[in-house]
């Protein structure tokens, strides 16, 4: 192998290696980021993931606004959030507006 490299004309091999050295890390992370972008742009379609646009305690029942949520203690609200998980409140008319994603 050393012989092969030593016989390579001029500095072409070094240039190629240098370019590859610089490009490889970028390619590696571009590929990883690209794959993750494709798979998780919409987490709700990925197995085991859920929508990120749904405010958890926005409504207690899909389609029905929560009345006077602000009167509920903070701790209770967070527990309610957990209970509501998976109720599909994201589709509610009261769902928080989507960002500019």
């Amino acid at each position: 192998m050393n012989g092969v490299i030593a016989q390579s004309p001029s500095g072409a091999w070094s240039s190629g290696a240098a370019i590859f050295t610089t490009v490889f890390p970028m390619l590696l992370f571009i590929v990883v980021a690209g794959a993750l972008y494709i798979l998780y742009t919409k987490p709700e379609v990925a197995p085991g993931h859920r929508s990120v646009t749904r405010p958890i305690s926005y409504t207690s029942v899909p389609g029905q606004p929560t009345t006077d949520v602000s009167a509920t203690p903070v701790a209770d609200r967070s527990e309610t959030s957990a209970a509501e998980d998976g109720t599909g409140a994201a589709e509610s008319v009261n769902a928080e507006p989507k960002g500019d994603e």
Partner: protein
Amino acid sequence: MITPTRAFPAASPGAPGHWQSAPPPGGRRPAGTIARGLVALTKPRIIELLLVTTVPAMLLAQRGVPPLRLVLVTLIGGTLAAGSANTINCYIDRDIDAVMKRTARRPLVVGGQGTIKPWEALAWGAVLGAGATLLLGLMANWLAASLADTAILFYIFVYTLLLKRRSPANIVIGGAAGCFPVLVGWAAVTGTVALPAVVLFAVIFLWTPPHFWALAMKFRKDYAAANVPMLPVVASPATVARKILWYSYAMVAATLALIPFAGWIYGVLAAALGVWFLVEAHGLDARVRAADTAPELDGAPSPAPMRLFHLSIAYLTLLFAAVAVTALLPWGRW
């Protein structure tokens, strides 16, 4: 018209975490806000702890002080690598971060700051990762760069994507990602990975479950709400406390395995620190059992798992300080 209510109103109005402080969709975001969001995505406090383990490993590998330039390159490269892994983790986990109070104010979470767009976070993570690889590869060596890349990929694919939402052993196996900085530091100095570096790796590997399970005991409801099967979610507190105890003993044994390389002074310090850690781990076990036997009584002792969590951070810092000091001492080694 229904007024939107914040999901997790932990922040006061006007505070950075207040959702109303987030810019309107399509609005122009101040550069400072974006910069703060990007930095927050890297989880700087976790990086800090990772770097605490890197420098002592480099000192032990050198048996003295390595060139300052190499130390700086390794620390900056390690920071970029850990920042990359943490940022991409935030991107993947942004759906469950929104559910957990502890993480609801992260920059990617709607209802939190919401200052960074998901694709921006992903690009930021990729740039940090590529930067770490180039910096470590060109200015330290390619073994160190490869180990840093392995840590990033392990954290993303093995911990975040494969284990975190599926297995109670998520933090046991996935925690290995946090052990790589000692290997990176050692490799940066020597160009190889030797047995002492592997022992240091094992110490952090065994330290991670007690550290993280103590935190997860405190935030058990959070993890349960997010359907993350952390051990405290799927097992009783008594079982968790017992496993914490086992890992604590194994960790202390691993710290003592470094004595032939680090010397007797290190051994004395490691043993004393180990006793300190074990006393607190036994204390947690005792408090959990006391709470189990008298759960209905008012004033029943709280397990207070965060005591062990905070102690574990101090413990790891002091243990690696002992490694660093004894690596610099001209005596105290065999």
